């Protein structure tokens, strides 16, 4: 098979359209229509056939990445250069396909987001309409969501139509003020406030639960104390000054090993970093095994039996 024409094919311009243009809207609507058609087709596929289709698609999608990982890649070769043989041509084709696959995955992620929004709407609209328990919270959620969606899209469309004229705060319209109020004024501050609460819980939990009842917990407490002290620039600086007085500034003096910095670095580089490396090693080996099982649809969640 001659892969050369594939590798030298010009980049696809079909899917590219300026944002906010008529062409872009037509293409987006066409894509939604085709997507819906595919969904309808999938819904009408006999149940027995559905699983093999999913298994096949999973295998092909995973296979692409496995192949692009294993296929020899000529050093320094990129899509603008000419391949010398079929191995290089396949390599270039795979490289070229990576961006297409990436965009397909981005679209899937978008569909997942849409499904999530749809699910939230369905659950909370149902709870509100049936006046189920805590329906008032559902109403607040629905109103907040609608306000953010309306203002978000309003601002986006306004920005596209005005070609960036509203970039400066002096020329803002209702949409920019709305987004600023809802996103910067409310959402961000609520988000930050929620996470800052963690500090209170940590403090309270450390006070109540951190007890040195065994040797292990004593070692843990001592090393945590050193790391906490070392986080404080002032403590580290102070300990450095004390050690410097003892050593007289001699970098080869034995007492240098007992500065807060030296102890902290020893804990971090000798104990902590290798432990994290070992943990990650185990996690990624597990991830690799899991990936193979999902790719081959051996997992129940991956369409396997």
């Amino acid at each position, binding site marked *: 098979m001659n892969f050369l024409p594939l590798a030298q094919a010009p980049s696809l311009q079909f899917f590219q359209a300026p944002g906010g243009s008529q062409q872009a809207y037509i293409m987006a609507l066409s894509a939604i229509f085709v997507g819906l058609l595919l969904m309808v087709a999938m819904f009408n596929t006999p149940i027995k056939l559905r699983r093999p289709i999913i298994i096949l698609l999973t295998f092909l999608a995973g296979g692409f990445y496995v192949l692009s990982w294993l296929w020899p890649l000529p050093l320094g070769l990129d899509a603008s250069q000419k391949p010398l043989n079929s191995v290089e041509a396949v390599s270039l084709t795979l490289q070229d396909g990576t961006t297409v696959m990436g965009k397909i995955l981005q679209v899937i992620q978008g569909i997942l987001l849409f499904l999530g929004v749809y699910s939230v709407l369905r659950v909370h609209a149902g709870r509100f309409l049936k006046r189920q328990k805590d329906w008032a919270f559902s109403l607040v959620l629905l109103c907040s969501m609608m306000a953010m969606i309306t203002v978000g899209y309003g601002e986006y469309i306004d920005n596209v139509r005005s070609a960036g004229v509203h970039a400066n705060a002096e020329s803002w319209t209702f949409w920019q003020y709305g987004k600023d109020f809802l996103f910067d004024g409310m959402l961000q501050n609520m988000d930050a406030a929620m996470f800052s609460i963690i500090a209170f819980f940590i403090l309270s939990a450390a006070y109540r639960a951190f007890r040195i009842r065994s040797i292990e917990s004593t070692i843990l407490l001592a090393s945590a104390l050193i790391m906490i002290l070392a986080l404080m620039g002032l403590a580290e600086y102070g300990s450095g000054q004390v050690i410097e007085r003892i050593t007289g500034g001699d970098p080869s003096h034995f007492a240098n090993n007992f500065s807060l910095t030296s102890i902290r670095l020893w804990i971090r*580089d000798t104990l902590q970093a290798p432990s994290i490396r070992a943990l990650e090693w185990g996690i990624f080996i597990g991830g690799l095994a899991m990936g193979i099982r999902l790719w081959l649809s051996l997992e129940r969640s991956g369409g396997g039996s």
Partner: protein
Amino acid sequence: MKQPLWMEKLQQIDRKVLYLMLILATAIPLFIKGLVIPVKIEDSTGALFVKLNSLPEGSVVVIQSDWTVSSRGESAGQLEALLRILRSRKSKFVLFSAADPQAPQVARNVIRRVNKEFPDGGFKPWQDYVDLKYFPQAESFASSMASDLRKAWDRTMIDPADGRSKSVFESPVLKGVRRLEDLQLYTIVTASGTPRIVIQRFGSPSRVPIAALVTGVMGPEHMNYFAAGQLIGMSNGLRGVVELETMMVEGVNHRVDGKASKAEYKRFNGSIPPLEGAQYKRGMQYFASLHTALIMLIILVILGNMGIFTKWFRKGDA
């Protein structure tokens, strides 16, 4: 033997009192202006600063901003410091996020804030930076960048000169950029594990130097990548921000009248003078609060263990 009443009370402080103490301990230092706390420069932060200061004028740097306001205390200071250094180097940058849809807007707000510090208005969109917004699916996006940057970044942006939407590759920022090798530095400001994803997809050795500015929680995990040379520099948490600000204000290994430098990076042979007009900002402002909060944490843990300490001492007496 029963503990004295005061000791029992110290071990049963009501949590509302603890919360009030924490509020005061973290809030009061924020009102003390001009506080400068000395800090030792870590190798990882020193290497990042030296790399940033070696960028030639007009160089193109990537800022992958993968944080939201939940980590504002650390990440906002890191992005601000990074932007100030890039401005001093007259570098251009590409901004996007691959972790959170909220992240690009959060980063834009920081850029807007930092721009106010410069009399000329700071970074101008299209001229000095391009905003590629959000790319979902960090893994596949990083793979796409590694294989074909132009296709991965094929987005449009409005050119303020004529109000027309154009490909970002027509902008002065990305005009000469075709591949990863054309970028001078790839920075990731993050509260998650996205540097690992980029390192894995770009391969090793990477075709572009990668640097990470991570939160304190993510620091130890990423230290391995710095030790392995896969990250050329790294700023770790709030302390990293303070280190960057110190180097900006004091310079690196910079001696005035023969006095010892306040920001020493021993692995660096040369010296870097202070950045023009640099001041201690958000990092140093929060650093004092971090100190008081941590001191409070240490004291409370000691108080919580008072009973056990006294038991030990009594055993010793017997």
